[in-house]
Each structure stands twice: as structure tokens, then as C-alpha cells.
């Protein structure tokens, strides 16, 4: 569950906060299961972010994105959309955290992506994968 497709080039409609110059990333599988992936910058080869599907560790996670985001990513079908949690890697699952407040949402039909800041103050920026 939670395997991700590989995508050679995703265009961020707005850059990731903290990385204003970086707009283009590839989604690449890191492990054989396709569970752990990375967003690899196409503009700076030393820059990458570990990401994964919310499904394995946060099965109830169901982010609601605004109409503005839907328009900006040109989403016409929810089946085209993948949600990626940005991970801050620790050495174990308990010390690795996922950003639930701001997932990266990608429209696989238009290859547009955006780190969406969700309007829900209860969502953590750093949730441990396992308690």
C-alpha cells in the first residue's frame, strides 16, 4: 500500500517555502517497494526531499484542499492527484517525522505540484511515523 509512481519532471506552481529558486523536481523511488521516494531537484542535484504516501502511517489522513489549489493545479479528477508527505529523516521510524500540515500535492495529469499549507491548526509540521 502507498507505492508511488515515478515522475520525471514536476513543475511547482509555487516554490517550497525556504527554497525560492527551485521549481522543478523529479519524483523518484528510493526503495524497491516504491514506498519511500524522493523529490529530487532538477536544478540543483544536491537538493532532495524524502517523501512518502500518507497511507501506511497515517491511514486516516484526508487533507482538504481549497478551490484555489484545485484551480492552480488544474485538477479535474481526484484520481489524478497524489499526496506526498515530506519526511524529516531520523535513524528510526520513531525519530522520523512527517509534515502533515503542508503536504506536496501533485496533479499527475498536468505534472503540476504545490506544497499546500492546510487550513487546520491541529495538523502537525512534524508527526513521528510511529508513536
Amino acid at each position: 500500500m502507498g507505492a508511488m509512481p515515478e515522475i520525471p519532471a514536476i513543475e511547482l506552481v509555487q516554490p517550497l517555502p525556504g527554497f525560492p529558486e527551485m521549481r522543478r523536481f523529479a519524483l523518484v523511488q528510493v526503495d524497491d517497494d516504491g514506498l519511500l521516494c524522493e523529490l529530487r531537484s532538477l536544478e540543483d542535484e544536491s537538493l532532495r526531499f524524502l517523501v512518502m504516501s500518507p497511507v501506511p502511517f497515517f491511514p486516516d489522513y484526508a487533507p482538504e484542499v481549497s478551490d484555489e489549489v484545485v484551480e492552480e493545479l488544474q485538477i479535474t479528477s481526484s484520481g489524478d492527484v497524489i499526496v506526498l508527505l515530506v519526511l524529516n529523516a531520523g535513524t528510526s521510524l520513531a525519530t522520523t517525522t512527517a509534515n502533515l500540515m503542508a503536504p506536496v500535492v501533485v496533479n499527475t495529469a498536468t505534472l503540476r505540484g504545490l506544497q499546500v499549507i492546510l487550513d487546520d491548526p491541529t495538523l502537525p509540521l512534524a508527526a513521528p511515523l510511529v508513536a
Partner: protein
Amino acid sequence: MLVLSRRVGERVVVGDDVTITVLEVRGDVVRIGIDAPRSVAVHRAELLEQLESVNREAASPSDDAVASLSQALRSRPDKS
């Protein structure tokens, strides 16, 4: 910094297409409404600062960190 006094219901216009309306003032909480085009990102400043910092911490983990995490995911007990 430009400083203006506004009453509830009054507005401030920034540039051609951003309008900020004071909706409610209660104690030390001010509710404001912002009308801006989609290309203008509007966020609470402290949240954006936290996100920048979390993103920077997450950026470019070492190969070792990636390998141990990958190993931990493979061997997790509840793997489905």
C-alpha cells in the same frame, strides 16, 4: 512601515488587486479578510516561517539516514 487606523468594515487597498478588510475587533484579536488574486500567496507569517524551517531541516538527508530509514521501513512489524 505605513501605519493606518481603520474601523471595522473599512478597507485598505494594496496595489491594484489586493484588498484587506477589517472584519472584527475583539480584545487583542483582529479578524481581517484578504481579497487577492490566486497568484498572491497569503499566509500567517509565523506559520510560513515554521514551514521554511521544517523544510530546511528535511532537505537533503544523508545517504546513511536514507539507508537506515529505508531499512526500518522494510522491517517494520505491521508491514502490509
